[in-house]
């Protein structure tokens, strides 16, 4: 049986009250409830406060460069298709520095789960505007207010992601369930997670989110209806929907790779003679 102690990592260096604690707890709970052992998981993170998360739980960890958790996660998943690969980013990591990778991983529908801690501000570098900062958000680098934000949910949907959800770090039960569904889903699963930053975002506070979020499960619509999903994706302000916004079974990138039909690449033996059959075309 997998227990809480299996996922006891290093002591977090986050600020007290940080939304990251809720996300860490939700992830651990999801893995424990799914009976997944740490060695079956690969956590690939970038740089930012979110990027530290893998160190505070247990599993295989590849803590990558800023903006780059997605490409190594894709490479590792193709190399060992049996690994449960979860990429972890913050909003700057995912939608700023890593924006191109985000679009193309969604388009290819790579079979990874992507947790994006979205607190609408840069934490690690101390309080600059992020790609998701609300319009007009004033920081040291945006003295005249931030430009309009990206909409990660809508972007993921139109880019071809097959599972798009929004969670809230303040609702661990709900978030944990979303993470379980994201892990179970085959294809690119984005979970954008609203999270307060107690040190640098005094606008989008815990209370601010708490007053606005509502769970989509109360509503009824076809999750594979892209137009309906996009309508939900555009809701932001007085009300913010959380839950699965779009889900569809779409062709998975790894499924169209003939080499993977023989099992995990990493388990197949190296044999130099495999090249010999190619020689005849050069004679």
């Amino acid at each position: 049986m997998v227990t809480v102690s299996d996922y006891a990592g290093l002591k977090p260096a986050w600020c007290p009250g940080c939304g990251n604690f809720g996300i860490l707890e939700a992830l651990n709970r999801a893995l424990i409830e799914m009976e997944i052992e740490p060695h079956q998981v690969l956590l690939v993170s970038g740089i930012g406060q979110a990027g530290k998360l893998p160190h505070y739980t247990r599993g295989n960890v590849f803590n990558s460069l800023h903006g780059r958790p997605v490409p190594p996660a894709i490479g590792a998943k193709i190399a060992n298709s049996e690994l449960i690969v979860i990429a972890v980013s913050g909003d700057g990591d995912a939608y700023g520095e890593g924006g191109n990778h985000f679009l193309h991983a969604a388009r290819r529908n790579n079979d990874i789960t992507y947790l994006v801690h979205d607190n609408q501000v840069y934490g690690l570098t101390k309080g600059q505007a992020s790609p998701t900062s609300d319009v007009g958000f004033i920081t040291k680098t945006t003295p005249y207010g931030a430009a309009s934000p990206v909409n990660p949910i809508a972007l993921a949907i139109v880019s071809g992601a097959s599972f798009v959800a929004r969670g809230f770090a303040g609702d661990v039960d709900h978030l944990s369930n979303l993470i379980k569904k994201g892990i179970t889903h085959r294809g690119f699963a984005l979970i954008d997670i609203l999270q307060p930053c107690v040190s640098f975002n005094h606008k989008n506070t815990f209370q601010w989110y708490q007053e606005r979020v509502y769970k989509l499960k109360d509503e009824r619509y076809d999750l594979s209806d892209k137009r309906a999903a996009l309508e939900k994706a555009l809701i932001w302000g007085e009300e913010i929907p959380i839950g699965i916004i779009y889900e569809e079974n779409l062709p998975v990138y790894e499924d169209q790779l003939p080499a993977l039909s023989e099992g995990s690449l990493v388990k197949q033996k190296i044999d130099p003679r495999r090249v010999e059959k190619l020689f005849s075309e050069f004679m």
Partner: protein
Amino acid sequence: MPIDFNFMVGGEAGQGVQSVGFLLAKVFARGGYHVFADQDYESRVRGGHNFFRVRVSDGKVDAIAEDVDILIALNMDSIELHQPNLVKQGIIIFDGEKIKGVSGDNGNLFSIPLEKMAEKAGDKLMINTVALGAALSMVNYDLNILNAVLVDRFGKGEIGDMNIVAAKAGYDYVQSEHKGKFRKINPLSEDKRMLLTGNEAISLGAIAAGCKFMAAYPMTPASSIMEYMAAKSKGLDLVMVHAEDEIAAINMSIGAAYAGVRAMTATSGSGLCLMVEGIGLAGITETPVVIIDGQRPGPAVGLPTRTEQGDLQFVLHAHHGDFPRAVLAPATIEDAFWVTVNAFNWAEKYQLPVIVLTDHHLASSYATVDRLDLSQVTIDRGMLFSEKEDEPLEYMRHRVTKSGISPRAFPGLGKALVVTDCDEHDEEGHLTEDAGERTAQVQKRLRKLIPLEKEIGTPEKYGPKRAETTLIGWGSTYGAIHEAVDILRREDASVNMLHLNELWPFPAKAVADAVSKARNSYVIENNATGQLARLIKAETGYAVSGRILKYDGRPFTPADIAQAVRKEGG
């Protein structure tokens, strides 16, 4: 008398220059000849001026020649630009009905109604095939070999048949209309060699070495590696991902390598600029990755379809901070296979990035290579962690060891947790800012250079052991320098060659020895500043006495080098 015969095909992009050139190379390779062929083309899909040179010899050749014996001119530019290279009794094959107003020595010009004959054979697109038949007829080559090659290329159906008819038409026309001035070139033997480009040799080397993952973004001259690997990814345990950009390409490759498969990427200089962060990521996470840099003239986009050796100093230093890496540079097309195999072994043994420097010239030129002996390919995956011998829960990815090499485990294959970080980390792989752990990890990584240095072979020497002049080169200039030494020695010059295909860690002792013993030492480099000369100075303290440099985007010929050495007074 030895055979050393040169064909050239010239025309616009879209006229089939590459196709005729390749087929010429192939028919002589099939006939047992050594072939070296290079392509000169512009960065455009139609128009402009392109040419393809095919050198045929009964001895080994690794360079192009400037002389042309037979020129197939598909446009006026080809005649005007290349007539000066024609040997005295050389022939220009052209279609006088299409190319009007050609002037020059009539003895050299031979007009054939190429288009008319192609049309008669079934399609005027086959102008190049008619010309091919005509060119081979000039040397009375065996038409059956050409027919077999055409069938391989175009298939046994209608298109193959039409091409055979077209080639025969050209062949017969020359037999009846042209009183042959050339000696007959007979097929030599049935002993077939492989005809490979540098990029094909690299691809085969990677596959032989067990590379299972490649991610790349198209860029001349590296694209044909990704295309080849993609084409072969069915039927082999191999995946090629066309990434969204070079940054993704190298990071995907690093992710795959971390997960335990041999992985590579390939690009050119300005693509490598985007990959630089990945070089350091591989460095600090100690992840083996092979990076092919097909150099072309820079900076920035430079000359996209031309050649240069301008990335040496860049790849030696690319990224910030101190960490080990290896830099290799294949000398010939055959060497590209073996260097690639070696790159994968070193990457895994020493857990670091290995950069293979080729260039447009090597990447896109063709050469005949003796059938590659796969029994000589060794696979060395370096130190691996064994859960049978050691407790997996105590596994530490970056354990500090005497050699600096920490045994690798792969995520998900056992109970050991494989933790690594692009931040400085402790032995387990978790991020740390501890001064002692930082120092220990930096030292551990750099210690890997000690055994790696011992792997570096002695640079190849050619010519007399002692000579007044030593020509020093690296990478793809090998063939041209080698032949220049022969040319100069025939003129009684005292000259030899020192050539490096392993550049980092730098073989300082061997190079210092050569430079200090020669009265004159010249570097021969396809770049503007003599990047190897600077490396020699930095690593040995010796300054070379001269630099023979070419940075017009074109490869050296042996004659270029011989002439430059004469000018220097060597």
